[in-house]
């Protein structure tokens, strides 16, 4: 059955910058006192000497343990720094890949929009020319009708170019990465 302490333990393990604490001092005093004092008191009058000697040994053992803890802390800190650096490099690489992909995408859409722009300009010119021809003197009614129809067909295309361009623009807008500013940055 899982205890309440388990999630806490897991979150501590998952945290990159977490350096585990060493055993608090009061625990040490309590543990040494609980173990030695009642026994040694039985050997009076050497009890006080034995007690002092036992404490000396306990302090030495504890000092050794702290040396090991210090080494562990240093190692843990080095690992944490290494993980931070590696994660940062990985994230930057992801950013670089996304940048390259987006630039390629912009170039493709830009080329498409340029093509639409040129076509649009040409179609407008043709529509204007067809209208001009429809109004010219010396043409039969049939010829005028033909040029009028041509002009109508051409101008009808102009809003279609707008629709197509808008579709491309919306693709670009959607491709913009969502703004994910970290809370740290928002805090300033």
């Amino acid at each position, binding site marked *: 059955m899982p205890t309440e302490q388990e999630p806490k333990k897991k979150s501590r393990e998952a945290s990159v910058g977490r350096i585990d604490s060493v055993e608090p001092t009061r625990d040490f005093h309590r543990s040494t006192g609980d173990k030695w004092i009642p026994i040694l008191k039985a050997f009076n009058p050497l009890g006080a000497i034995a007690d002092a000697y036992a404490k000396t040994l306990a302090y030495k053992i504890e000092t050794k343990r702290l040396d090991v803890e210090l080494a562990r802390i240093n190692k843990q800190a080095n690992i944490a720094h290494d993980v931070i650096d590696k994660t940062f490099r990985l994230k930057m690489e992801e950013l670089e890949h996304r940048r390259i992909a987006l630039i390629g995408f912009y170039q493709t859409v830009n080329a498409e929009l340029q093509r639409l722009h040129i076509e649009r300009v040409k179609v407008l010119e043709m529509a204007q020319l067809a209208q001009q021809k429809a109004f010219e003197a010396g043409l039969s009614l049939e010829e005028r009708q033909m040029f009028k129809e041509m002009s109508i067909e051409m101008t*009808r295309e102009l809003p279609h170019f707008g629709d197509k361009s808008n579709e491309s623009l919306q693709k670009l807008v959607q491709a913009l990465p969502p703004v994910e500013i970290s809370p740290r940055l928002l805090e300033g």
Partner: protein
Amino acid sequence: MWWLIPIGIGVGLKLLYDAVSEAEYEARERWESKREDVEKSIEDHRRNIEKHIQKAQRSYDFHFLVDLHYSSSQVANLAYQLLDDARKSFSGMSKMLKKSKEQRSALQQELEDARRIKDRNRIHETIEQLKMVNELRKSIFEDRDRVKEQKAQFLSEVQRLNNQTRELKEFIRDRCDDGGQEWYDRLEARKRSRRISEGKR
């Protein structure tokens, strides 16, 4: 002399106790000192790691936001091109409407003249031409209205993207430490020099 024995034992025990107490005191001092070192080391490491994380996060955020600003400005530029295209189409169609209006006026004058001299063929032909011009105008008006809507849509998109780009730029300047301010200054300097070279000032 026998009474000297307990005194000797007592003195011996006292000396032994003092020696052991001294050793205990020294061991305790060393342990206290070591414990403080360990606590200080933990605090130092925690602080350094926190600083390291913040630095990495800020650096990543800065690059992310600069990329986003670049993307946003690129899309805004493209949206502006589309707006410009829509404006040109609108203007071209308005010119067509103006010319067709002139043509219609001329045809109406011609119709009056034809009616005055009662030239049936000319009247018929002019009426047909007027119908044609009106059809053409109606169609252009409809299409121009659609282009007008698109123009308004592109204008709104350009304004939105420009605002977004400006907000990002100011955010980078204000929230990304010295790097953000330097980036902003370089960007503004480039803009100024481009304006000067284009003669806009």
